[in-house]
């Protein structure tokens, strides 16, 4: 079983602020399946599947199109590129990784001092971002400048692969969410829903929840479901009580996260729906980390939301791992919630 579209979504480049390719892919996928479709000024893709008119209410499903990555901040004399992080990136996961640079997707590697030349005092120490460079094979600055400029986005180059019930890729955060929305849209084709079902694929979540409020002000939903990818943390070296979530335990439901306690009624509805449909689920067991739900609560007169996530090990790294059954559980739960319409 290969999750073909998830694979394609994950492999697309979409560092925050450079989500065009992801947005275009999504636009092509949904053309003809919705009643209204537009891309707004910041690059959010918004689509509406009209209800049958029995209810004037609107439910918004939301996922973010951007991923964490890097950006060129200086071209060095030796032709290498210095960079800064876009979103939360741990410098330890960057050393020795392959990347693509710029919209042209030119391949490079992130180099660091070889083990042979390191002093024992620097070995195993985390280098600062400033000490890391991207090498693309240019002999000097002038050559590099022909193809690159300051501000070029840098993407992880990991190819998607599946191993048993697990999948490895970059950008599961939040292409899993993007794919959940596409699946829900496919699931409701030909169905008559009482309410307007709205979709928002939003930009720039990773740099401060910037796209979601803008999308919400255009849609004006009564409630929202945010589909995310979240920290697993079920590493064997950590005691179990520090695990935020664990792979294989099903969709993650969030009662509270950084900056927001999720709407209790929506949260209870999600829990009850999962139980009644025998969908295995788990709770997010740490508060740290936020989602676009935090922005939605602070938008207009306040939009209540629920958050449902696929857990991911080594999240925000070039090699994140998900359990495919967790992902399929989120898709099933999303579909049931939309068809039952009890969230509104």
């Amino acid at each position, binding site marked *: 079983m290969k999750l073909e579209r998830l694979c394609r979504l994950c492999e697309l480049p979409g560092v925050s602020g450079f989500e065009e390719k992801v947005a275009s892919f999504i636009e092509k996928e949904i053309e003809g399946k919705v009643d209204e479709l537009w891309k707004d000024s910041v690059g959010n893709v918004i689509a509406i599947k009209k209800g049958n008119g029995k209810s004037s209410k609107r439910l918004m499903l939301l996922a973010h199109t951007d991923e964490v990555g890097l950006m060129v901040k200086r071209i060095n004399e030796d032709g290498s590129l210095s960079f800064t992080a876009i979103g939360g990136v741990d410098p330890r996961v960057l050393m020795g990784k392959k990347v693509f640079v710029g919209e042209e997707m030119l391949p490079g590697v992130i180099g660091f001092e070889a083990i042979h030349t390191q002093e024992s005092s620097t070995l195993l120490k985390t280098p600062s971002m400033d000490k890391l460079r991207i090498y693309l094979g240019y002999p000097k600055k002038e050559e590099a400048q022909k193809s690159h400029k300051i501000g070029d986005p840098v993407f992880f180059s990991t190819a998607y692969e599946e191993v048993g019930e697990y999948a490895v890729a970059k950008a599961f955060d939040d292409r899993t969410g993007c794919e959940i929305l596409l699946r829900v849209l496919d699931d409701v084709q030909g169905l008559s829903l009482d309410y307007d079902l709205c979709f928002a694929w939003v930009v720039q979540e990773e740099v401060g929840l910037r796209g979601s409020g803008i999308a919400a002000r255009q849609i004006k939903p009564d409630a929202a479901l945010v589909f995310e990818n979240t920290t697993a943390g079920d590493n064997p070296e950590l005691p179990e009580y520090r695990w935020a979530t664990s792979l294989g335990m099903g969709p993650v439901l969030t*009662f509270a996260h950084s900056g927001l306690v999720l709407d*209790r009624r929506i949260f209870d509805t999600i829990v009850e729906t999962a139980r009644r449909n025998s969908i295995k689920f788990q709770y997010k067991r740490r*508060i740290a980390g936020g989602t676009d739900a935090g922005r939605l609560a602070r938008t207009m*007169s*306040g939009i209540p939301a629920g958050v449902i996530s696929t857990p991911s090990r080594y999240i925000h790294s070039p090699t994140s791992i998900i359990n495919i059954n967790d992902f399929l559980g989120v898709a099933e739960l999303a579909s049931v919630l939309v068809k039952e319409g009890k969230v509104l």
Partner: protein
Amino acid sequence: MKELIKKLVEISSPSGREDAIREAITEEVRDYVDELRVDALGNLICMKKGKSGKKLLLDAHMDEIGVVVTHIDDKGFLRIDMLGGVSPYMLLGSRIIFESGAYGIVSTEGESAREAGEIMKNLDFDHIFVDIGASSREEAEKLAPIGTFGTYDSKFRDLGEKLVSKSMDDRIACAILVQTIKELKEPADDVYFVFAVQEEVGIVGASVAAFDIMPDMAIAVDVTAGPDTPKSFKRMGFKLGAGPTIKIKDRGSVSSSRVVSRLKEVADIRSIPVQYEVLIFGGTDARGYQVTGKGIAAGTVSVPTRYVHSPNEIVDYNDVLNTVRLLKALAEEGV
């Protein structure tokens, strides 16, 4: 008014679980207001009609800091995380009451005296646990399953001029607004009273409560520090018992100068003692109002409070009464 304060501070309603406190406040004010509604996030919004055509908004947040169960071990001990700014040092040794009715005691780890000492030096939520008297995972899961919210369990004490309780932040302001609603007979402007949700986790309710109202002035009523204890913050000059403070700034907002000067004017007209406040940390709902829509002239009136975010916060009763007088004066004199 002490009865009202006792009633409101002893209710356990952490951020996102404001149902109990909202119900209690609704019961108190229902007969004294012209309008009453609950918005999409759970903010309780009441209004008393005035004549000027202008609008004044007074805010107090209903929620209090709290904790939530995140893990249960085989022996029935709970791990918790915080809702709002909760110090693990304050939690240590304190009692927690959970929304399920379970009670817990907070303690910490340490397999040797040295380890216990190290943990105490940098105490965090990864090293504290809650004992709810359960002897197995199954028993604990019935009493307080993962996702159960809780708060400090602490009773109101009347020390005469000083009052002690948990959640003076911000129930003392809820009580002040309720008392103002009851005493206010002829407001100049339409006065909106917002009892807001989820201030402690990041000013959630107040970011949207005024969106449909767009008042001419919004004032958050909250607690501030009480830097009058031995060797307290010497950079802040206000103290308990010298009247409510008119906030100039904190980390969240700079009060609109029009709000500051109007508050001082009405305080002077009615001879109400007030102090000015520059808080070097913290923030209030005023931040949410100030940046709503096209912007609202916003500020904060604070009740100086010792030991904020502890199970035992202390306020001065005269400051409380003077805050009611100040808000009533503003509502009667107009924005």
